[in-house]
């Protein structure tokens, strides 16, 4: 009910415009608190100071998957209900997800070199995350290459839905195949295996990333709404000038 009420682009802009500064502020506070905890927490007895990379690598990887899920759900609604706001929501999420995925890959590589002795390994986890990054880039490129908004929305929604298959592959890759990457250590049926002194900075940073995502997503959806209004007005103006 509330989703269909908010699906009106003008209403969406009006409702969320006053919310955005609060989300930005929340993100800033969480980042300040999280960064303090990142460097106040003890070093790991095995990994030394490189454990601090975990506090920015793991939230980036979580957000890479979460953002793609958001993009997939929005694409599904866009494809079924052909609603412009759903496509705007999916399109707005793609660059944010691409950045989170790139960060997961880069910081993972910077963590892998001192710990595993290699920058990269073509194993299940790393390769499937690279495939996720390629899905994001493919989505952005496809949207940019099709001029007609409705055709672009349909084609990219199909691509986004195909890419959803990759999410469980990423999640379970560490269980299905031999890998250098460690298995799940936070979201486990028997509870986290990470010490509380390291779990807190990780969770606060994860919340900071989440708040940043929400803020950027809301801004980018609003930018899409403004762009479509602008293009619509220009098209009407062009039509009138052409018809005169």
């Amino acid at each position, binding site marked *: 009910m509330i989703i269909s009420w908010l699906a009106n682009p003008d209403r969406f802009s009006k409702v969320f415009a006053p919310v955005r500064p609060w989300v930005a502020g929340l993100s800033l506070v969480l980042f300040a608190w999280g960064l303090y905890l990142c460097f106040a927490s003890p070093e790991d007895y095995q990994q030394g100071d490189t454990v601090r990379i975990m506090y920015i690598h793991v939230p980036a990887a979580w957000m890479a998957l979460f953002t793609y899920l958001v993009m997939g759900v929005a694409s599904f609604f866009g494809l079924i209900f052909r609603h412009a706001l759903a496509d705007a929501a999916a399109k707005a999420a793609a660059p944010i997800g691409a950045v989170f995925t790139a960060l997961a890959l880069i910081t993972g590589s910077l963590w892998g070199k001192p710990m595993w002795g290699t920058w990269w390994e073509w194993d299940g986890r790393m390769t499937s995350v690279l495939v996720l990054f390629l899905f994001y880039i493919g989505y952005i490129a496809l949207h940019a290459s099709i001029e007609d908004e409705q055709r672009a929305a349909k084609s990219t929604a199909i691509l986004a839905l195909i890419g959803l298959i990759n999410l469980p592959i990423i999640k379970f890759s560490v269980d299905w195949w031999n890998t250098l990457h460690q298995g799940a250590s936070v979201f486990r049926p028997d509870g986290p295996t990470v010490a509380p002194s390291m779990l807190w900075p990780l969770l606060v940073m994860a919340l900071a990333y989440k708040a940043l995502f929400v803020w950027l997503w809301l801004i*980018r959806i609003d930018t899409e709404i403004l762009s479509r209004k602008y293009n619509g007005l220009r098209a009407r103006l062009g039509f009138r000038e052409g018809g005169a």
Partner: protein
Amino acid sequence: MDLDMGKYAFFVWGSYGVTALALLSLTVLSVRAHRDRAAKLKALQETLAAEKAQKVDA
């Protein structure tokens, strides 16, 4: 709070540096695009309103 990362300084500060650069760039680009779009739309709406007012006067 300990900021001395010892022999891992390149890897730790490299990770935090790349992350800060990427997230700040994404934020600046997103905010700038939003402001730019809002300004363009406002200018177009004002032009159309002025045109409409001129027609009414005529």
